[in-house]
Structure formats: structure tokens, C-alpha cells
């Protein structure tokens, strides 16, 4: 597995010391916490920043683009696992759907949404690094999966699939489509035309879904509402004004008055995203800066405060030392990348001279370094989707994004 990360063990260990979980609140008290209970307290942001290890932000380069792309490349044709129900009363046998290669598009990478975000990863990396030596095989792979009959088959399936993959998979499909449509490339134009009916259908379903949502889903896993909005916003703003209006209206309705995000509840044991950071991230993109800054101040605690610490809590040492513990909880590695992405996006939105900018970038870099360190640690449980979130973080550091 990839070893091109430049970050050292020592930096990560220092990070573990200073950004350690602490958070010995009643809600998370475990025996392990007592050892980490002695948290340094910081009088201000500068003191906190000074305490952080120096870790360079991750950069997208040819080398890491190749191995990041290799992950989706290797899973696109690895079929979904079939369900494995416990044979208590019914014994089940499974056979693949007939002609799946021509009637299904996203049947690899463990599950539908991971197949979609894997495809997105390939498209994005190819757009950013056109001279990838693996470009030809990536195009072949996309061509096989993005055929017109494949997409029609998916559309037909989703017309009768209830809430399957709503909202997470839907949002990723729209993000993929946004990436394809903004790509000046003849293959991409053809693929985008094939996907558009499915994208249109999913956009309409999504609008109805958001409209009916009584309250946001604040979980740190797939159904998170802010994450869905974040994933599809680019597509909506460029190509789908009805969806954009829906996102704006519902974000205002669901998040506009939020204050005092409950950082103490993070991270949940199976979270791969930070609900607080994800919400801050989408609001940073929707609100004007003058409106966003006071909203953010009311929503997140100061970065140097103890209350912010749960959002920077890294993988516990018990995971770094015990790969099998990670394997059981692969989300915790993705969490490092998703937090890093959210922090990076926040840094990019704040005024350039805001003192929080370098701190957020550093925290993002520390998180991501931790993720890259163990990105191969859990095998297929991670390789079928980690590249998407790692790439999503890396693009926050592109000059164009800053």
C-alpha cells in the first residue's frame, strides 16, 4: 500500500499528545481517558497554535494521484457483497442480477454510494492530473460503467427503490455529474449525457426529501443532512437552480438558527464525519461572509478552547498500535480525512488575515497526516472509499481553492 506520505511518526505522536481526546466528560468517560486527562489549557489562539506540531498541508502530486486513483480503479469491478443474513428461519441464496454489466452502473466498491464516489474520484483526479499514466485504463473503466444502458438500468431500479441511498448516494451522484459536466472532454460529455436522466430524477427526489425533512439528520455517518448538501452544492449551483434553491431554503430553515454545536458528543464511535464541522462547512458556502462570521462564532466554540478539542481528537493510540481494532472501525480513518476537508474548507472561506486560517489549515494537515499514515491499514474495508475523502481534502489545498 501507499507509502508516499511525507509525514513522520513523531509528528503524529506529538499530535496525539496535544490534540488528544481529553474530553473526559461524563458522556465519554472510559478508563483510557484517565491517562489523557491532563490537557494543556490555552489562554488564546496563538498559544494553542504554538503548541501544534508543524505538519505541512497535503498536496496533490502525480505520485499520490496515481495511488489514490488505484483504489477506485481496483474496486469498480469488485461486486457488492451480497447480504449475509443470519439463517435463523430462512436460508437465502444469491445470484447476480442478469446482465448486470449492461444494466447496472455502480455495482462495485462494496456498495452503491462507494461505487459512485469512486467514479467521482477517478474523474476528479483525471481532470486535475491529465497526464496520469493510468489515464487510459481509467477511461476504459468509466466507459464500461457509464454506458447508456447501464444508466437507464440504474434509473429504472431507483424508480422502485424507495429511500435506498437517499440522501447520501444521491448527493454523490449529483456531485459526480457536476464534475463531468464541467469537464471539457468529449468522453465526459458523452458520459454526462448518459447520466443526466438519473441525475435529474435524483435531484427531484432530493428536493422533495429536503422539503419533508422535519429536522436535520446530525449523525456522523451517511444520512447527515449537511453532508448531502455539501456534496451536491456544486452541481446545483452550476446546473440545477431548483436544487440550489432547495438547498438554500432548507439549510436556512434547518441550520440558520443553530448555536452552540454539541461538540462534546463528537466523535461517535462509528462517525466518519464531524456533524459540527460539516454543518459549518456547508453554511460557509451558503452564507455571505458578513453573515457567516457571526453565525460561525455562535455555532462553534473558539478553536483553542477545551470545547473544540473533541473535533481534533485523533485516532486513539489503541488504534494506531492495534491494526485489528482499526479494521473493526474503518470509519475512524475516513473521519480524519473528512474533518480535514471540513477544516480546510473553513480556512478557505474565512478572510485571509483571520488568525484562525493558519490554525485550521494546520489542524487539517494534522488530521490528514494521521489518515494517510494508516490509509492502507484496513484493506478493502477502507480502500473502497478512502480515496474519495482523501482527494476531497487534498483539493482544499489547491491554489484555486484558496
Amino acid at each position, binding site marked *: 500500500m501507499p507509502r508516499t506520505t511525507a509525514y513522520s511518526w513523531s509528528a503524529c505522536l506529538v499530535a496525539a499528545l496535544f490534540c488528544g481526546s481529553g474530553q473526559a466528560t461524563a458522556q*465519554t468517560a472510559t478508563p483510557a481517558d484517565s491517562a489523557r486527562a491532563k490537557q494543556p489549557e490555552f489562554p488564546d489562539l496563538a498559544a494553542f497554535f504554538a503548541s501544534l506540531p508543524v505538519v505541512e498541508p497535503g498536496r496533490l502530486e502525480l505520485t499520490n494521484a496515481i495511488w489514490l486513483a488505484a483504489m477506485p480503479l481496483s474496486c469498480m469491478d469488485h461486486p457488492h457483497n451480497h447480504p449475509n443474513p443470519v439463517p*435463523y428461519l430462512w436460508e437465502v441464496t444469491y445470484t*447476480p442480477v442478469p446482465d448486470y454489466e449492461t444494466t447496472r452502473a455502480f455495482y462495485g466498491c462494496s456498495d*452503491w454510494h462507494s461505487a459512485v464516489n469512486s467514479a467521482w474520484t477517478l474523474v476528479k483526479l483525471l481532470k486535475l492530473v491529465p497526464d496520469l499514466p493510468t489515464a487510459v485504463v481509467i477511461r476504459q473503466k468509466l466507459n464500461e460503467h457509464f454506458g447508456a444502458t447501464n444508466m437507464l438500468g440504474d434509473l429504472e431500479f431507483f424508480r422502485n427503490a*424507495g429511500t*435506498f441511498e437517499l440522501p447520501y448516494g444521491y448527493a454523490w451522484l449529483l456531485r459526480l455529474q457536476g464534475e463531468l459536466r464541467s469537464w471539457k472532454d468529449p468522453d465526459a460529455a458523452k458520459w454526462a449525457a448518459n447520466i443526466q436522466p438519473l441525475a435529474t430524477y435524483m435531484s427531484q427526489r432530493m428536493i422533495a426529501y429536503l422539503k419533508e425533512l422535519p429536522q436535520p439528520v446530525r449523525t*456522523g455517518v451517511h444520512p447527515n*443532512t449537511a453532508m448531502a448538501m455539501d456534496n451536491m452544492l456544486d452541481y446545483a449551483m452550476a446546473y440545477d437552480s431548483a436544487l440550489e434553491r432547495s438547498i438554500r431554503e432548507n439549510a436556512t430553515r434547518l441550520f440558520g438558527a443553530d448555536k452552540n454545536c454539541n461538540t462534546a458528543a463528537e466523535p461517535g464511535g462509528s462517525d466518519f464525519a464531524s456533524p459540527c464541522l460539516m454543518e459549518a462547512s456547508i453554511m460557509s458556502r451558503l452564507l455571505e461572509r458578513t453573515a457567516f462570521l457571526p453565525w460561525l462564532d455562535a455555532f462553534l466554540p473558539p478553536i483553542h478552547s477545551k470545547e473544540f478539542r473533541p473535533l481534533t481528537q485523533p485516532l486513539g493510540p489503541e488504534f494506531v498500535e492495534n491494526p485489528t481494532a482499526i*479494521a473493526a472501525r474503518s470509519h475512524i480513518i475516513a473521519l480524519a480525512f473528512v474533518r480535514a476537508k471540513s477544516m480546510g474548507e473553513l480556512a478557505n472561506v474565512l478572510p485571509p488575515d483571520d488568525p484562525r486560517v493558519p490554525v485550521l489549515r494546520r489542524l487539517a494537515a494534522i488530521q490528514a497526516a494521521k489518515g494517510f499514515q494508516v490509509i492502507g491499514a484496513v484493506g478493502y474495508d477502507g480502500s473502497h472509499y478512502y480515496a474519495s475523502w482523501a482527494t476531497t481534502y487534498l483539493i482544499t489545498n489547491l491554489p484555486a481553492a484558496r
Partner: protein
Amino acid sequence: MRSTCPDGSSKRSTPAALIPLQRQSSAMRWLSASAAALVVFGSATLPAAAQQTPTRPDSTPVRPDYKSIDELLAALPKVAPPVFDETRALWLGALPLGCVDRLQPRTTARGGGGGGAAGPGGSAAVGPAAGDSAGGRASGRGVNTGANYFWVASYRLVANHNRTRAFWGCTDWHSAASSMWVTVRLLKDFPRFGMKELSREKLADHLGKSNLDGELAFFQTDAGQFERPYGYAWLLKLQSELRTWPDSQAKRWAANVAPLASWMADSLAAHITALRTPVRTGTQANTALSIHLALDYADAAAHVALRRALVTAARRFYLTDRDCNTLAEAAAAGRGGAARGARAVAAAAANDSAARGAAAGADARGAGAGGAGGRGGGGAGAAVDVLSPCLSEAALMARVLEPAAFVTWVNAFLPPLQAGRFAPLTEAYGVGAVGAERARLSALAFQRAHAMERIARALPAADPRVVAWHRLSALHADRGFELLRDDATGTHWVPAYALLYLAARN
């Protein structure tokens, strides 16, 4: 889920109609009125803002503090606790009898979740006929898990299921086990009631030696985390009841169940001991509830090691807890915490191997696909709580801690009953709910009532809160029966929650 019983629904409504209705309707009026009051306060005067702890502002509107317990009591209607008489026992006892022989749907949740509507079940599912696909019905809750996106499933009933399985009815395993408990417990309390022969017939059919031997073999080989911990806890609860029943037939059943119970006790003790953090959701994956049920077995069976493991874990999980987030427990509006919970991890997560990997249940907020059977509940954002996390924890600590220590602990853990922050645990709910939502709220009402009874009984008799806890408990129980009576959806599992409450009063 079907609204009718496969063996004829008419007999089900009869006992219900015999329940006196006056008290229910007065409680209904109060609950509706206080709901309106909440709206007025929330929108017009906003007195609540100043009292809110820093919690999500959208969690629930909060009424202003009452000045004292007395003022709270004055505002509460005087509802007597529902009587536990033969009529009610017959009602509760009839419901399990209608489900114990109804085959569970072809695919059931992986673990202790459930309580939802059944999918295609009953005899219709035996034939291969409707075996079109797994997906559309895979969860058994009308949620498409997408399993048929790539895989086409075909089903076959396990051979000799009625001789090699014991808990194959009532939609899911844990509901079958809890239904057996209801049947046993009512026979113990009402040994001569009108259904005694019928109840014994069903118990004998399901609790035979070969049935339980088959169960043990299944759990030891194929089951993985299936039904752990919630189903295990109900099996242990059932066995605790059988063991303490001086009855010749019950002795045989207890002997048949004993090997499975013993195995599950050991497995559960190991599981709870290894759990890093408890599942705190309002779903059936909730750790405190399972510990609570299992403690009954530990006491009945004098299983010292299990008791020590459960008590140690409870102290490790909960002893330092403070300021439970009652604001997140609005029953009607749903709950942010629940949305973080197992069943809101909609179909998307269910297919994710990573999410399954997290199923060890080691999640402070219980996002654990873990015990809860992570699939189902595709309506993200919908309320899913079937129990109060705050109260289930407090009820457990009420029996884990010494009385004085409990008083100190609960004072730091729960807000004063008269505080506005406590309002979500007294609020109106369920007025217009139907189907699975009504069933859920019914169970929630009973679980709250049950926990409140346990808390009240752990306080010193002179504590002024005791009266208030009992009053609130009666209100919730009254509400629970109201919700249970006129909707069939929850009848395969809610009676167990009702009986937990009634039993707690003895």
C-alpha cells in the same frame, strides 16, 4: 404490517373494549392542552431561552420552570395508575398469542432492532411464489435496502423450524422471546385466567427441548452478533421468570431453556465487559435497558459472575454521568440523538461494510448498527425512539447504587422535575399517530412509566419527588394503553413494555 391477525382479529378487540375509558380521555385532554401551551410559550414569549443549557436550539421548545414540585403536581391531571386486573391481563396475554405462530418475514433485521412493521410474513411467505427479490422488502420494514441492486435472493424455510427453533414468530427473535415472557408472567400473576390452557399450549409448542437445543446450536454456530444484546436480554428475562415459577410444566421449560440462557449469560457478560462505551440511543440497542433486563436473570439464577459483570459495567459507563440531555428526548418531534442512532443510519449505511464493522456497538451515541440492526428506518430524520435514554439509565442506576448514592447521582444526572428542561419527559405525544409510529410511542410511554416507577421506588419514601414520579408514571402508562388499544401494528412487541411497567409496580 398487517393490521389484522392471521387467526382472526375479532377476538383481539374484545378485551380492549372492556377497559374503562374515562381516565384515558381526561389524560388525553390534559396532554393536548399542554401541547398547545408549549406552542404558545415557544412562539410568543420565549421565556425558555434563558433557561436553556447550551444545547441545540432546535431540540425542543421548553416550558418555563415551575416553582416547585407542588406547582408541577398542581398542573398535572390526577390520573390513577392503570389497574392490573384480569381484564387487562387477558388483553395483554391475547396479543402474543396472535403472533407466536406467525412466521417471521423472510429477512429479518440482523440484531436487536425491530419493533417495526413486519414485511411479508405469515404463511404467504412460505411458498416460493412472491420470492421476487430481496431488496424491496429486505428489511421487513418496507425499506428498500438495495440488496437487489446486484443480488437476486431466493428463500427456503429452515428445515423443521417448528422443532428446531423456539422463537420464530412475532416478527423478530427478540419480540418472540419477549412475547413468551409476557405469556409466562401473566400465567404466574393470573394462574386461573381464561387463557391459561391456550397460553400453556403455545409455551409447550415453543419451549420444547428440541426447540431450545436447536436454538443453542444456531447461536453457537451461525449467529454472530445476531440479537446481542437486546434479544439475549429478553431471553434471560424469560428464563428469570420461568426459574422462579413453582409449576411443574414451568420447571420442564426452564430446564429446556437453561443451556441457552447460560450460554447467553456468559456471552452477554463478555460483551458488556468488552464494550468501551455504552449505546445511548433510544433504540432497542440501548445498553442500559439490556443490562436492566439481564440483571433480573442474574438475581433469579443467583449468577454471581453475570451480576458482577453487569454492575461493574453499569458503574463504569454511567457513574460519572451528569446533566442528561433531556432536551433531546422530545417524543413527538423526533430527536437529534436518535437521528444519530442506529435506525437513522438508513439503507445507505446498512450496506456499508465499514458501518457493519462498527457494529460492535462501541459508540457513545450508539450509532452502532450494532445491536440495533443498523438497517431500516429509511426516513432519515424521523423519530425512532422506543425508550428514554435518560430514564433507562436512571432506572438502571436505581438498582445498581445504594439508596443514598443513587439520590446523589440522580440529582446530578436529571434536572429537577419542575424544571423546564424536564418538560420533554412529560410532554404530550401520539395524539394523531398511526401504525408503527403509534406503536413506537406506545412503547415509549410504557418504558418511561416503567423507568419512573423504578426511580420512584429507589428514592426515600419521604422524598417529595416520589409522588411526582408516580403521577408522571401513571400518566405515561395511561397514555401507553390508549395508544396500544386501537392500533394493531405494535401488538407483537409493545405488550412486553406494558407488562414491564405493570410488573414494576409490584
